[in-house]
């Protein structure tokens, strides 16, 4: 503010209620405003968020270094192995790591041996914690602070809901999609000798899969956020649903045969299977704490591909529905 303005009164006289004669921005801008406001707020609010984002960047660098150091060794061990294979394997393992804690799947390779895979479960739990921390306050904070009435006096309720989802969606894109897309290009440069056209589907997979994860998480986390006015409870319950169910289901598994239908209740496993479906895999091995089972996704026995996609759709739909119902209920 300029020096010439001495008292607040003078300021009022000078500027108050300049009539607004500009053009009002459109609806999309306003949705963006909701997202932006929330983003800024979360970033300023929580040290944990900054720490977790820092930590994620750190683990990323670590993983890359590990891969690049072992590249030559792996290429020497297997004469058929190309850098394209390395890129694909590592990238897929990494994105699948976002949703696998105790469980990992392996596609059977042609020679019947399962391929060596790293488990990046460590990263995935931090990503989940991060998303839960920032997402659980999205609606709960507005309910507990009674700011919803102000929103509804300016926007439609569906715009409010969309704005909140958009906020989460953008955040998901920044902490999930963007790093893995970046990772793709890092590997292209780092591994060398990459045929970009062959590698391109891997990039598409990374984008598609991380978006699906973001949408699923947002549906679940926002649903819990709208169910309570405490962000702590919202956060804990969504974490429990995602994480604990994963743990319980994977410890229920008995060895051998087809995996049971109970894994359809486990969001993370369903997401993981979706990744395999996206790559066109038909048989995957399900490794839980207690054993290995194989799942044939198209044989008409046990769990099928469409069931997995259906279960995922149901999770998302249910989440969205809860948010919408709750928002309408609160505004009455």
């Amino acid at each position, binding site marked *: 503010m300029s020096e010439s303005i001495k008292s*607040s009164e003078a300021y*009022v006289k000078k*500027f108050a*209620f300049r009539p607004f004669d500009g053009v009002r*921005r459109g609806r999309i801008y306003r949705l963006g*405003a909701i997202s932006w406001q929330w983003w800024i707020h979360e970033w300023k609010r929580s040290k944990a968020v900054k720490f977790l984002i820092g930590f994620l960047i750190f683990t990323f660098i670590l993983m890359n270094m590990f891969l690049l150091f072992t590249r030559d060794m792996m290429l020497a061990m297997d004469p058929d192995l190309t850098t394209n294979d390395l890129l694909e394997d590592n990238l897929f393992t990494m994105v699948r790591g976002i949703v696998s804690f105790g469980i990992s799947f392996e596609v059977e390779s042609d020679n019947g041996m399962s391929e060596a895979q790293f488990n990046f479960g460590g990263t995935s739990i931090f990503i989940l914690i991060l998303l839960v921390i920032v997402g659980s306050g999205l609606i709960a904070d507005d309910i507990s602070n009674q700011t919803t*009435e102000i929103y509804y*006096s*300016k926007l439609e309720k569906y715009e409010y809901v969309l704005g909140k989802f958009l906020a989460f969606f953008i955040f998901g894109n920044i902490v999930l999609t963007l790093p893995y897309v970046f990772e793709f290009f890092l590997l292209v440069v780092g591994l060398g000798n990459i045929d970009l056209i062959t590698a391109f589907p891997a990039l598409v997979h990374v984008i598609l899969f991380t978006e699906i994860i973001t949408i699923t998480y947002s549906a679940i986390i926002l649903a819990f956020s709208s169910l309570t006015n405490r962000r702590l409870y919202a956060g804990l319950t969504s974490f429990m649903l995602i994480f604990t169910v994963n743990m319980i289901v994977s410890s229920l598994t008995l060895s051998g045969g087809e995996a049971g239908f109970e894994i359809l209740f486990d969001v993370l496993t369903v997401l993981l299977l979706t990744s395999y479906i996206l790559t066109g895999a038909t048989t995957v091995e399900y490794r839980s704490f207690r054993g290995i089972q194989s799942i044939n996704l198209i044989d008409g026995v046990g769990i099928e591909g469409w069931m997995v996609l259906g279960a995922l759709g149901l999770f998302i739909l249910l989440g969205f529905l809860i948010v919408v119902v709750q928002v309408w209920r609160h505004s009455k």
Partner: protein
Amino acid sequence: METEIIVTDSLTKFYGKIRGIEDISVKIPSGGVGFLGPNAAGKTTLIRTLLGIIRPTRGSAQVLGYDIRHEINEVRDRIGYVPEFNTSFIPDTTAMSFVAFCGRMNGLSYPESKQRASDSLFYVGLGEERYRKFDTFSLGMKQKVKLAVALVHDPEIIICDEPTNGLDPSGRVQMLELIRNLQIDEGKNVILSSHLLRDVEKTTDYALVISEGEILAKGNIRELTANKRSTVSVKVKSKYNDLLEALEVNGLNVWTDGAFIEVEKTPAVEKEIFIIANRIGVDIRYLGSRSRSLEDVFVSLFKEQEVQIH
């Protein structure tokens, strides 16, 4: 009343079976208007319906010529709303950041929203505190922030729902003054909803008296409180009934109110009362004119209503 800012046509809202408002058909003039009514009268319901926060069960309304069913976003950009709830705001945001954000929700560009947020906060008297976080704000300050939020997008109508809730006497005076200034100095249309008659009387010229979801009375506050029902109170030492009779015989409209005789005010009625009292030999101890405050109108209206109901 030059122009109407809000026109409603049998606007009705039922919450299930509970009546919020029923068949409200009014034309609200520009300037200052008070919505006056006891708790659960339906004031908030009416306001929320006008803002499209809840949908009317039936009926329609136009705000500044825009229909609330089809052009609600146009309506919202032209109304500033101070909700009655004790909004505590997100504790760790600054007033400036939140008010600017609210401006953006009404379509202001980013720099414009910052500028206007600052203006509004200065206007409500929080200029110095605008970069402080909400968790350090008192209730009165938060109430002012709500007003700033209502002002930030330069609305034509400002609706304040019980803006003095929870304020101490000086805070209350300040708030009402701000609202009155908005109307007088800034030429805004102000709607003040309150169950406190004095607040409305002090702030606006026109009032809508609402009770049990219906409009009981509407009009200029002067006219509502004015003479047509103003009375002259008379107190006598003795011969109370004699005087009463004599006044009635002389064609005056009289009734009793405890120890007082109330006479409907007509020009020079006081003189007439003296003459009559003199004639029948009654000593008058007190004779005073009583202008009805809005409170009296209010109370008598409710009494009438109760009589009708029971």
